[in-house]
């Protein structure tokens, strides 16, 4: 079977001593660790922008000292992070979880019937679900939220040519906390608000 082993053999035999080779890959290891740690420190910088985040005293101290300015980040680090798959932070479901369960649906203007988002596979639906979580996170950013809703509605209008316009319905339900649940409130989720945005332009 044809392979690229002769190139590797050539590089190793004629250009690098064993210790140089080990030192070279050790450098990559250290570089990788520094870049990955730095990316994660910066990724928590959004704490500074959102006043609504409930932080404990340790979190408040961290929010004060965390750097957010990435403008002096060298290009090589940006590209390395991107291609090594380490450019996003790993603080999943942190520091708190949303107290509100937000559900979205698109309905026709005339009949008010919900239109399902048509993805064909389970994995694609997981991707759509993660986008919904992103939409929840950007819910306070009116400009980005409206742009995302508009994008989804255009996509759906293109897929359902017979529909001329539609409504975007947001259902916000507050989830009871554990203490409330054990104080006798039997209903697990209480609906308290429904918004309607017309996506037709």
């Amino acid at each position, binding site marked *: 079977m044809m392979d690229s082993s002769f*190139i590797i053999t050539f590089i*190793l035999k004629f250009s690098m001593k064993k210790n140089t080779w080990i030192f070279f*890959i*050790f450098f990559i290891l250290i570089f990788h660790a520094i870049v990955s740690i730095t990316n994660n420190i910066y990724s*928590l910088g959004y704490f500074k922008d959102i006043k609504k985040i*409930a932080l404990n005293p340790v979190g408040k101290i961290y929010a004060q000292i965390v750097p957010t300015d990435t403008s002096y980040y060298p290009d090589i680090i940006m590209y390395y992070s*991107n291609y*090594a798959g380490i450019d996003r932070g*790993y603080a999943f479901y942190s520091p708190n979880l*949303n107290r509100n369960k937000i559900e979205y649906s698109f309905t026709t203007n005339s009949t008010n019937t919900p239109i399902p988002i048509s993805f064909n596979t389970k994995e694609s639906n997981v991707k759509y679900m993660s986008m919904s979580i992103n939409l929840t996170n950007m819910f306070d950013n009116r400009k980005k939220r409206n742009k995302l809703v508009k994008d989804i509605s255009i996509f759906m209008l293109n897929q359902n040519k017979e529909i001329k316009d539609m409504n975007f319905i947001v259902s916000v339900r507050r989830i009871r906390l554990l203490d409330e649940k054990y104080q006798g409130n039997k209903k697990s989720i209480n609906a308290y608000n429904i918004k309607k945005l017309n996506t037709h332009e």
Partner: protein
Amino acid sequence: MNKIVSFMTSYKDDSQNTKIFIYLISILALINILSIFPDLYSIYSKNGIISESLNSNFVSADKIKVSTLTENIISLTSIEYKYAFIIPFYLYIISLIMILLNYWKILFAIIVIFLHTVFLNSAYLLSYGADFMIAFLLYINLFFCIEDQIKVESYKGIIFSFAVRLMQIQLCIIYFFGGFGKVLGFDWLDGNAIWLCVNHYLDEKVINSFFAHIPKFIYQLASLHVTILELLFPIFVFLSKNIRKWTVINIIIMHIVIALVIKIYTFSIAMLLFNIIAFYPGKFSILMKYLDEKRSVIFKQKNKNNEVTT
């Protein structure tokens, strides 16, 4: 220097491992792309669910995206958009197959890394944990491919050991920052986090019929357990062999529960693979040897039976 050398070369490749890891990572990436194949146009195309202008709010303009490749293909070949659009995805699949077939695997591993990053850059809002973990595994796959191609005996095993160390360090960073983010808020410390997670992902009927009857302290213990496990993961895995074993078992259980409750199977499989390769790289070859032995026993038994009947 001696310490660096012993740190970098402490994991020995017993010739089977590298090949097995290349197969596992490539198959995972192949399954991942095939599992969204019918929806590629809806996810990544210019008429997809997210417009390029919204995506550009999150991904800088200088990063290569599917639209960049498609425009270049159209300008070079003058083919229709729908054909130009699908070419990078076919190239990605073919490259993974080439790696599996052991044909110019280093070159194809580089192509796969490049294209996977392009796909990530093109659908920022639709990408999630599994996509990033697979991106990192594909990066590691390149080192396994290089190790597999090294024929100079004195250099063998160095890259393998380096790749395993890199995976260990990356996992420590992943879990530490996962835990660190959690200790800055309230939900993970007062125990509400797991309960809120269950409510976010499960149907109300399922919650009321089962999850609402679980005692409060179970949720509190589970939330604290996850936080401590993640935050102290870098210490636990390097303390002793026994603590490492129990830490990795706990992490594996956590990812299985995530798969079952949140139903993000690809992410959980990627993390299971990631953890086992990083901390127990020899386990796969033991499994392969066991399966080989079983197969040869069955084969011998069949031959004996055939001889008796004839």
